């Protein structure tokens, strides 16, 4: 069976790759959105922390015999703890200043973290075995679905939806939404906003660490894997609208799919299609598709 002259299997395969990339975009841009919302910091270290999540999983497996499932919990936890230290010791001093300072500081952090990993592990990259339970795949008739890839999409979706639910439907989320609008007033009402900011940054970067572990068996574990991805993720955030939770999830997945389709119909444009969309969105709706215009 063919659609527009493309065999269905090829189409489905590209859509799956698009969906997987989209899952990473969604999880990473979600973390960026949460952080930007409350801290007003454009976290350029996000890619480096994603890479760190992948490396922690790899180090855990090769040096300490920690399996994939444990790494899926431990690596985000460690990355989150590092985030808490970064927020307490460095970012805290920048809140009074322009966004630009946060961006510069986190950009510097990203370079340092990446530099350290390049120094110790080189840039040739390491491979991480797909965990045994998720090896192989199933033939769905219209396509062959490798189990691990299905798992990545599912796990990302669950994490995104759980985060969305916490933020939009719970009391903790109400604190976060209120704090995003007016942190001073929230603190004047008796809520410990500085603690909330620390935990939010920790949570946001833990999401990046989680995405890193998910990516480890698919992509090469490489010190530069974060900086390759983060530029696209920033474009996703701009398109979705800075600080919008639902926007970053929907835009992340949607753009992954669009990228996959472009690879199929006009491969030459697949590397730039997201940036073209970004330019158009910036011209037509500067606050992003889901952002609020102020």
């Amino acid at each position: 069976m063919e659609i527009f002259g493309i065999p269905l299997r090829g189409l489905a395969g590209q859509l799956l790759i698009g969906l997987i990339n989209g899952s990473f975009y969604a999880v990473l841009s979600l973390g960026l959105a949460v952080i930007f919302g409350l801290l007003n910091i454009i976290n350029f270290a996000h890619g480096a922390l994603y890479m760190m999540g992948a490396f922690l999983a790899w180090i855990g497996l090769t040096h300490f015999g920690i399996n994939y499932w444990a790494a899926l919990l431990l690596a985000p936890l460690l990355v989150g703890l590092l985030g808490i230290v970064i927020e307490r010791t460095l970012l805290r001093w920048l809140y009074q200043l322009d966004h630009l300072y946060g961006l510069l500081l986190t950009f510097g952090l990203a370079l340092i973290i990446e530099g350290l990993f390049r120094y110790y592990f080189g840039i040739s990259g390491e491979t991480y075995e797909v965990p045994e339970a998720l090896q192989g795949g199933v033939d769905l008739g219209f396509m062959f679905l490798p189990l691990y890839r299905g798992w990545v999409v599912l796990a990302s979706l669950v994490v995104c939806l759980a985060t969305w639910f916490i933020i939009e439907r719970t009391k903790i989320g109400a604190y976060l939404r209120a704090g995003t609008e007016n942190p001073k007033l929230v603190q004047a009402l008796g809520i410990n906003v500085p603690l909330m900011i620390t935990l939010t940054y920790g949570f946001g970067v833990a999401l990046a660490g989680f995405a890193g572990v998910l990516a480890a068996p698919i992509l090469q574990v490489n010190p530069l894997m974060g900086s390759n991805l983060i530029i696209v993720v920033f474009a996703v955030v701009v398109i979705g609208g800075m600080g919008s939770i639902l926007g970053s999830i929907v835009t992340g997945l949607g753009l992954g799919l669009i990228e996959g389709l472009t690879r199929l119909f006009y491969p030459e444009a697949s590397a730039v299609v997201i940036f073209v969309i970004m330019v158009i969105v910036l011209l037509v709706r500067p606050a992003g598709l889901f952002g609020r215009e102020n």
Partner: protein
Amino acid sequence: MTSVAPPAVEMLRISGLHAFYGESHILHGIDLMVNRGEVVTLLGRNGAGRTTTLKAILGLTGRRTGSVMMNGRETIGMAPHRIARLGIGYCPEERGIFASLNAEENLLLPPRVGSGGMGLEEIYGMFPNLAERRTSPGMRLSGGEQQMLAMARILRTGARLLLLDEITEGLAPVIVQKLGQVIRALREKGLTIVLVEQNFRFAAPLADRHYVIEHGRIVEQVDKADLSSRMNTLHELLGV
């Protein structure tokens, strides 16, 4: 006439309070005192430092020096959320209703800061409009509804000291009247209230004492009993 008023218990004592926003020095040594159960107003022209005084009580300005005692505890070195937890409810001039929260989420947002806060039913009894609008997003509420909500929000928490900034500003007379009733009801309940108010006709019958602020200092203090004899002074200071 024999008065059986209970002995005055001090709730808030501010002495020599200076406050800054960055480099600008706004408060130049405020001294004032509020007893438990009193309603006190801060009067003055725009920019005199009334709003800043309320903010400085909560530590919301930049640097602040001097002394702010709440129930006998020094708060000058405390973080704002810890000061609020001593039992203070703050209603800011811009009302501060969160647009991304619905009315009831706004109402339930502030944590309890004391015992004996009003229950949800009692609050909806006092502000029936809010009950009808409980699922409306904060940004869809009218100015009056937002003001009611900003008041209701701090009545739930058990705060014993309310700092209310220009609550009648820009509202229809019928709503202003309603707010007057609310303030009276709160005084009956024994709450302590500091009111920053432009509308002197609204504030005068409600307050036990008036402080006039000018250039970041208290320049006049008028008790309720002396109000009529001191009217001329007040008119001169406030230009009303």
